[in-house]
């Protein structure tokens, strides 16, 4: 049985007149059906690049990206990509925004629309169907963006720091919401984040990248032993702090001479 997604020895560089930027070097990992992978790494190390490669906006210079063991190319596989900002189109109502993907792919069948309607209801946006994005709060906008992505019923969900534009309070709540939604719809997901707590609380395993050019530093499976998993509950699990510190150490390995090691637990406590 092949994993849903597999990256094999992927390399990528950006070319500009100013020069070459090696972004990724020999990245390999896989994501099984129904699994939730978080990718953390220093800023600018190439996390977004990985997602752009997976969904086919870029193509790898070396190596392969396989879906169910086949190199079908991102454009044909059914992938949902949630960008950092919600990018709701201001001139469309929430309803017109959430069906944008269906419109583009000409999939406006009644059963698909019914599904979207149900999602709006489930995620508390039913009343705002005919509102414009400017009338919604940041959290609601983010949920609308998620519904827009889920409306296409993707097999794989890519999330690029989807909560970073929100304030801390909203971020916890929306993160919890969206984490639950993804679990409920039993989606396979890859989440890019720079927030360690977010990664530990939402993911099944965390992939840690080095600085640019990014290589895989380590892969840490997360097992919190919760009966009813939810990102907020996860933050209170006994093992949470242990994982947090582990990932923190992995991320800061190369700067250990700059940063004092005793700063680690203090930062962990504030989370």
């Amino acid at each position: 049985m092949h994993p849903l997604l597999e990256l094999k020895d992927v390399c990528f560089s950006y070319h500009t007149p100013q020069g070459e930027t090696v972004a990724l070097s020999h990245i390999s990992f896989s994501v099984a059906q129904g699994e939730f992978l978080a990718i953390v790494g220093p800023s600018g190390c190439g996390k977004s690049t990985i997602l752009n490669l997976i969904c086919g906006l870029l193509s790898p210079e070396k190596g392969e990206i396989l879906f169910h063991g086949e190199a079908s190319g991102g454009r044909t596989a059914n992938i949902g990509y949630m960008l950092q900002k919600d990018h709701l189109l201001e001139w469309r109502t929430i309803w017109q925004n959430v069906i944008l993907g269906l419109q583009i792919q000409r999939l406006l069948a009644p059963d698909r629309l019914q599904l979207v309607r149900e999602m709006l209801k489930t995620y508390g946006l039913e009343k705002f169907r005919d509102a414009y994005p400017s009338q919604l709060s940041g959290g609601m906008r983010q949920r609308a963006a998620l519904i827009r992505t889920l409306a296409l019923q993707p097999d794989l969900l890519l999330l690029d720091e989807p909560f970073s534009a929100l304030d801390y309070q909203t971020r916890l709540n929306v993160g919890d919401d969206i984490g639950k939604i993804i679990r409920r719809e039993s989606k396979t997901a890859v989440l890019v984040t720079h927030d360690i707590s977010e990664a530990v609380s939402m993911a099944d395993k965390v992939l840690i990248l080095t600085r640019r050019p990014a290589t895989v530093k380590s892969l840490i499976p997360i097992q919190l032993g919760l009966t009813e998993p939810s990102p907020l509950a996860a933050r209170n699990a006994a093992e949470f702090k242990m994982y947090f510190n582990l990932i923190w150490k992995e991320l800061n390995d190369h700067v250990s001479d700059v940063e004092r090691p005793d700063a680690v637990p203090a930062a962990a406590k504030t989370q």
Partner: protein
Amino acid sequence: MSQTSNAQTLFLQRQKRSKILIQAARILLLLAFLFLWQISADWGWIDSFIFSSPRKIMQTFYEMCCDQSLFTHIGVTLLETLVSFFFVVVLGLLAAVFLWSFPRVSKVLEPYLVVLNSLPKSALAPLLIVWLGANMKTIIVAGLSVAIFGSILNLYTGFLEVDPEKLKLIYTLGGARREALFRVVLPSSLPLILSVMKVNIGLCLVGVIIGEFIGARQGLGYLIIYGSQVFKLDWVLLSIVLLCLIAMLLYSTLRLIERRCLRRRSL
């Protein structure tokens, strides 16, 4: 909400009063100007044969209304302006979309567009007359030539400024460049399109008048040139006043359309 504080009521009153004052001052200024003009003409401070006077202009207006000739001139100028404006809108949008769709081609054409745009279009008018003949077609092309290049450049640069992340969104939803154009580029450029059009209707009028100066038998531009040649300066000044009114009318019509279209967005 109905509970407005005293200070707020006072503020609103003051605001309203100042608005009325400004409006009144505007009207008074116009009346004072007309009055001074009339007085200077009556008392011989200025030669009313050259400078005309409000009364003479009104008389000319009345006479030309009676013999219907004025309506033809106004109608012809308006028609030519609107037709050339229509072509500016359609051709400008098509050309800008074309340039956006083919970035290579647009790179090649850019310097030519810039040169054509900065060329004083009145220089083209005599050429157009020779090429196309002294008829309405020429005058419409003259109006078009004044506005078209600027429109294309403005629209095209506006299209390029669309948020690349929004385009990426369309691509991640499985859309191609076509979808990006119709779902994001054009709708998000609507305010730009409207404001470009608002400027260009005035430019079309300029072009039409230039065209009428040299190759027409009808229209307000013709009336101005003919009037100045036969020393009927009442005609000239009447035409200029009418042109002011037409320009104002066209501009405010477009502003109204703009407000209509954008009201929904600025909730």
